[in-house]
């Protein structure tokens, strides 16, 4: 059994951990297993903190856009507000409606939560800070992020509520449609790099800022913009937040969920947003590349910049209608991204790039 992780490339804390475990004299398969378990716990914890931070940040940004402050009461500018929210949601009664579909209702939030985390196996947080450098990295991300839609559909069906069902159906239609332009815009980069591995993609952008794919005219910026649009739709955020459109479907697919189950959906939404931004940074903004600062700080700064962009979208734009959303995906984004893909391939073939 071979692991895709090259231990020698491990960085900082991971290498330390590996070294410590090696001293205990465990046999190799056990050593790998324990390392991976610890790694996943670390990533899980990290992402939970990130999600909580993002919720707080979103509320602050919303507040400041709307000329108010957002949470102010808990700690400095309400920094532990979302922790309090989480603790409260833990204590809430878990309302189990009698007309639910037992299995589906229970597993939907779990699946949503798990699917949101799966992508982080292959996201490089920094130079060497990656759980597993799969050689099909980006393909893997595209595959697992689509799990979210199944969970939303499950939530819509299992709740036995018409609003939830409408929300679930909408999200299925939306995510499936936007998957196509998203993959097409990603493929433009993949064709260029010639590898699906996230690490390879980042490494091909090392050096000067002009090596970032966003600055590789003309296909880079086009792919970036289409990717961000499709990603916003993928993460179900305004202006594409029709699955949970508050004013139409009350709360959409999660209308019947309370307490921790709702918290899972809620956190998963923010983790998805982080995933979208992280992939965007990896593909277009040079990943961890940057001068002076440690690589992971560069990564976080870039990701937060993209997250900020998504948040600004949310608090500025109205919401699209469901048919306009589809039209936009199929009549505009798909042709544009495919043309872009052809352009990128041709440029690669002709060698017209620097």
């Amino acid at each position, binding site marked *: 059994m071979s692991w895709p992780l090259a231990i020698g490339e491990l960085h900082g804390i991971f290498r330390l951990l590996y070294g410590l475990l090696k001293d205990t004299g465990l046999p190799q398969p056990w050593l790998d297993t324990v390392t991976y378990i610890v790694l996943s716990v670390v990533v899980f914890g990290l992402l939970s903190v990130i999600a909580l931070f993002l919720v707080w940040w979103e509320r602050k940004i919303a507040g400041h856009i709307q000329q108010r402050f*957002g949470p*102010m*009461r808990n700690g400095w500018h309400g920094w532990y507000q979302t*922790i*309090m*929210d989480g603790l*409260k949601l833990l204590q*809430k009664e878990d309302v189990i409606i009698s007309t639910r579909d037992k299995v589906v209702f229970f597993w939907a939030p779990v699946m949503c939560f798990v699917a949101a985390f799966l992508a982080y196996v292959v996201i490089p947080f920094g130079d060497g800070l990656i759980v597993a450098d799969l050689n099909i990295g980006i393909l893997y991300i595209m595959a697992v992020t689509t799990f979210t839609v199944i969970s939303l559909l499950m939530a819509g069906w299992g709740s036995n509520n018409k609003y939830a069902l409408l929300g679930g159906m909408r999200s299925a239609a939306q995510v499936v449609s936007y998957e196509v332009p998203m993959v097409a815009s990603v493929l433009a980069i993949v064709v260029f790099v010639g590898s699906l591995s996230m690490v390879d993609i980042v490494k091909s952008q090392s050096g000067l800022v002009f090596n970032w794919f966003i600055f590789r005219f003309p296909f880079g910026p086009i792919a970036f913009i289409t990717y961000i649009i499709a990603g916003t739709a993928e993460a179900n955020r305004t202006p594409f937040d029709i699955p949970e459109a508050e004013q139409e479907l009350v*709360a959409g697919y999660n209308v019947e969920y309370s307490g921790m189950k709702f918290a899972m959906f809620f956190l998963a939404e923010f983790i998805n947003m982080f995933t979208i931004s992280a992939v965007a940074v990896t593909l277009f903004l040079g990943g961890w590349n940057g001068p002076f600062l440690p690589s992971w700080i560069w990564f976080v700064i870039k990701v937060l910049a993209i997250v900020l962009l998504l948040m600004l979208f949310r608090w500025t734009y109205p919401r699209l209608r469901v048919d306009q959303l589809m039209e936009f995906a199929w009549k505009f984004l798909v042709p544009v991204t495919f043309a872009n893909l052809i352009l990128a391939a041709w440029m690669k073939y002709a060698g017209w790039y620097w």
Partner: protein
Amino acid sequence: MGLIRKLPIYAEKIPGGAITTTTLEKVRQYSQACSLWYLLFGTACCAIELMCTGAARYDFDRLGMIFRATPRQSDLIICAGTITKKMGPRLRRLYDQMAEPRYVIAMGGCTVSGGPFYYDSYAVEKGINHIIPVDVYIPGCPPRPESLLEGCLTLQEKIKKQKLSDWQEK
């Protein structure tokens, strides 16, 4: 809720358990008080004042209060506006749909007693305490946003004093 209620009783038998339970109790009370998500429920005039309180000048979000559209995810009904006899059963239903622990603020004269519609009206419920239990009453027609904020702070104080053992077994 059974296990959570009995947990302190077991915990106190362990050395140091009492301190742990009191600290946990504090965290529990504090987290509930500081994160009151209210249901978007407004019927009449008070709803406009509720909107104003959520808006820039008064800003509910400072207290950690955000609105949720569905009762399942909200902790608090701010019952803003007249509740008529036709609306009464619906209010009850919304309350029933909420997850425990849940709180009710009766905002405005109409919800306290029927207010200006107490006399001569065949359609108005004379106080929502006939329908659902109320935690905080805010008089006024309509109450100013300041009164509403005061009411929410009062509710937070109330929650912070609430012990786990006070809860009724439902």
